[in-house]
């Protein structure tokens, strides 16, 4: 077994992708300038959030997220052993490297600051979280109010009569800067609680593993998991709407495949209008729900792609008519959680440990709602708004002849957009033609070519020198990367391991059936009843198809990945973080998925 992964400097540029480095900020690519540091580190591909090639603009959220995560560890809470998570882009793919505090004296020196700062958050968690919910809604509102309008032929008269002294070109540029600032603010909010939440959970986790060395990770997750979680709300709303459609007799409208026809049919009757009113109420905010991780502009958002939620509603209507009870068994879920807690509690052999258990469970449950809920507010709701606003800027530039279509804006780096806006504004101001489309259209075509070439490249799971033991707690929690999984990748890099795949036993149950391998949300329509889904990762918004599935296998993710949380919620056996699921398994192949052991075995 090799003892290291390829150096980032050994990786070749795929043919046709020459010059890809120019598509990303200079600070986010590997370079000779920092070679010694970069070559000595361990970098893993973050397939949990960024499994696909990043477009130049989509790299924005990647950089904002990692910088924000890091800032809290390093500068806000002074997490004693951990600085940030360094980030690079290689051949368009996201690679991360956790940075520890090497010097024990420095770790020690950070402790009192951590106690004071993190302690404040833990002590005031509920109040601060309530404030957070207010802050995030205010932020969404502010983002929604950003305007991106084409520049007028002439300024409106009130600009003159009110003596404003500025014009539309400035507003447009300010709006774009504001969008970037709000996006960075969003990501800072995102990590205000998350790292601390994981720290408290890890403490509870470590305590139970010490008391009960064989306790399944799943059991610990179940003790803290919430029952009423915002992340499940969109799916709940769909079920409610399906029931309402059947109860009020408007379900026939959904026989039409085309969402416009469905709407027209509904508008024609009072009952249909009442249904549409309920739909509108649910849609904001709950259908600002991405069918992917929310990190790609190409992810489809329910509210903008009504065919997706209407399709799910149609499936649910069919189930309601078959007499299925779609309601989640809330009382039973609560009772099961209470049973699990009570039975483990009973197993401690000392009162001291029971007391510590109560205290740690209490804190873990205090912090967990944030851990479970933030994803909807940030990656789904807020990102939906941001993608929408970006398309508005794209529209403006398209109308000005810069682009062939609005989405071309995502082929620009975030700091190239102001240049394009400037080009448009200054030419508008002068009253001449911008360089605009003549410059950008061929450039965008070139970049699309590079992106296509990068997509053909298969990103290795890791680069550089793995640590002897993976000790960085967030790496383990968020990305599911352990010493074992690193060893597994090294073994697999030799091509020796052709049989069983292993990963996290993320949701219990054992099933056998035909595999359905898909690589993204646009393929979920291919899934048929009784199949085992094999995907790089799943998104929470895929929940409505879970009813068809026997189980789920993902390439990436740990016990706390969104896929794991959702699979447990829907009682679907799952193995996450297998690394090679989508590359080894073929659609139609029969496999055995053991969600108790965390293994996937090909049967033919």
């Amino acid at each position, binding site marked *: 077994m090799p003892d290291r992964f390829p150096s980032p400097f050994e990786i070749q540029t795929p043919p046709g992708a020459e010059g890809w480095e120019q598509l990303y900020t200079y600070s986010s690519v590997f370079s000779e300038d920092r070679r010694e540091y970069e070559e000595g580190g361990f970098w893993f591909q973050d397939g949990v959030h960024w499994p696909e090639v990043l477009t130049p603009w989509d790299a924005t959220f990647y950089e904002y997220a990692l910088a924000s995560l890091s800032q809290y560890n390093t500068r806000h809470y002074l997490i004693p052993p951990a600085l940030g998570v360094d980030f690079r882009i290689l051949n368009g793919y996201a690679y991360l490297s956790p940075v520890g505090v090497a010097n024990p004296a420095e770790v020690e020196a950070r402790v009192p600051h951590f106690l004071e700062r993190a302690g404040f958050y833990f002590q005031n968690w509920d109040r601060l979280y309530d404030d957070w919910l207010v802050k995030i809604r205010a932020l969404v509102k502010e983002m929604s109010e950003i305007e991106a309008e084409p520049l007028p032929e002439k300024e409106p008269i009130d600009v003159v009569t009110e003596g404003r002294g500025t014009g539309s070109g400035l507003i447009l540029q300010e709006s774009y800067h504001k969008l970037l600032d709000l996006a960075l603010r969003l990501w800072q909010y995102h990590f205000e609680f998350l790292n601390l939440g994981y720290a408290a959970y890890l403490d509870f986790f470590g305590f139970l593993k010490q008391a009960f060395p*064989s306790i399944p990770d799943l059991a610990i997750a179940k003790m803290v998991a919430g029952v009423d979680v915002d992340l499940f709300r969109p799916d709940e709303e769909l079920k409610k709407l399906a029931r309402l459609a059947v109860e009020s007799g408007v379900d026939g409208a959904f026989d039409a495949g085309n969402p416009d026809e469905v709407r027209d049919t509904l508008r024609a009757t009072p009952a249909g209008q009442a249904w549409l009113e309920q739909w509108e109420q649910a849609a904001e905010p709950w259908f600002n729900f991405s069918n992917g991780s929310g990190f790609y502009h190409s992810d489809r958002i329910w509210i903008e792609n009504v065919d997706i939620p209407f399709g799910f509603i149609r499936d649910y209507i069919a189930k309601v008519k078959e007499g299925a009870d779609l309601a989640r068994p809330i009382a039973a879920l609560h009772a099961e959680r209470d049973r699990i807690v009570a039975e483990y509690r009973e197993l401690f052999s000392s009162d001291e*440990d029971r007391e510590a258990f109560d205290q740690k469970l209490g*804190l873990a449950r205090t912090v967990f709602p944030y851990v479970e809920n933030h994803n909807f507010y940030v990656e789904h709701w807020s990102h939906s708004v941001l993608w929408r606003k970006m398309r508005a800027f794209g529209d403006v530039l398209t109308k000005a002849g810069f682009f062939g279509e609005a989405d071309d804006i995502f082929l620009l780096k975030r700091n190239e957009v102001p240049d394009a806006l400037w080009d448009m504004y200054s030419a508008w101001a002068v009253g001449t033609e911008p360089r605009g489309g003549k410059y950008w259209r061929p450039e965008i075509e070139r970049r699309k070519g590079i992106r296509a070439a990068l997509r053909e490249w298969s990103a290795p799971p890791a680069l550089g020198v793995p640590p002897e033991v993976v000790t960085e707690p967030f790496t383990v929690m968020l990305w599911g990367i*352990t010493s074992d999984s690193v060893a597994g990748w090294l073994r697999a890099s030799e091509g020796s391991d052709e049989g069983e795949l292993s990963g996290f036993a993320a949701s*219990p149950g054992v099933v056998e059936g035909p595999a359905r391998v898909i690589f993204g949300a646009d393929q979920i329509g291919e899934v048929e009843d009784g199949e085992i889904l094999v995907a790089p990762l799943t998104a929470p918004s895929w929940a409505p198809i879970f009813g068809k599935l026997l189980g789920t296998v993902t390439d990436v993710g740990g016990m706390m990945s969104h896929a794991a949380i959702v699979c447990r919620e829907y009682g679907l056996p799952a193995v996450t973080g297998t690394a090679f699921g989508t590359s080894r398994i073929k659609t139609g192949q029969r496999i055995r998925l053991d969600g108790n052991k965390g293994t996937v075995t090909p049967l033919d």
Partner: protein
Amino acid sequence: MRNVIWFDTFSADERACLGGKSASLGELMNAGLPVPPGFAVTTHAFRSAREGSGVVEAIRARLDGLDPSDVHDVTTRAAAVRELIMSWPLPEPIGAEIRAAYQQLCEQIQVADVPVAVRSSATSEDSPDASFAGEHDTYLWVRGGDQVISNVRRCWASLFTDRAVSYRVEMGYSHLDVEMCVAVQKMVRPRAAGVAFTLNPGDGDRSTIAIDSAWGFGEGVVSGEVTPDNFLVDKVIGSISRRTVSAKTHAFRLGDDEQVHRVELAPEEQREPSLTDDEIAAIAKLARAAERHYGCPQDIEWALDEDLSDGANVVLLQARPETVWSKKKVVVSTGADAMSSIVSTLVNPLYARKS
């Protein structure tokens, strides 16, 4: 009072006529601890048979004026009484009821002439016959109604062993006050058997049930002669966290002579897991129920009876308290406050260690 009572159906006021063994079997069944099924021939049946047989006077006459120091006299007279009991006429409906119960057992299990164990079951701890509870007889692999009745008589007769008779004379107890209940219980014919601990014997983890299992009778597992399959099951959520399937080179199985023999196994059988997931779950459930019933970690012997139907074929043979780890008090918490504990978790993350 009933003459025949199924183990798990006795009422509180019937307990006394059941004998300790039968009553405790019934209590185990009702506590979710399945033992091999069976019934008790109550002390009421014994008394009715004794009174109805018309030989009470004969017994009294045989034992009157016995000198316990005269070994020869004791032996002769006790043998004569046992002979009387073995041949006394069994008043109806006692005989019919025993036959009917046995027949019902056969039908329930769907095995004709199902082999049973017939055991004497002392009535209570402080009764005169209790001192000889261990001496009363046990008859294995009994088949057919006639044989069952004949062995019930042998149990009854065992009240009049030489030692029992001498003892009662010395203590001044009446020979006609003694009573006997007899337990008739299905013989287990294990497809697989073994032991289970309600903690991990390797590290004392109380959240774990550890199961050792091999083909056939559990002797090989208990003696260590067979390397068993090993399964670790989580006590609360029931997941199987580890399975080790060993090469079980031989097994202890019942021969046609109704004796247990050591047999070599074919290679494919050696490597086949001796339990299915459902069976593992059923054994874990049984072990957990035993632990709850007795209130402390248990070390149980279990068997998977091939005569019983799937889902009801795991039976408890024996339960005793685990003694190695249960005596240790485990304290994991350091008493540190929440924040200090979080710091040490972050600095020395347990989660990061290699498994």
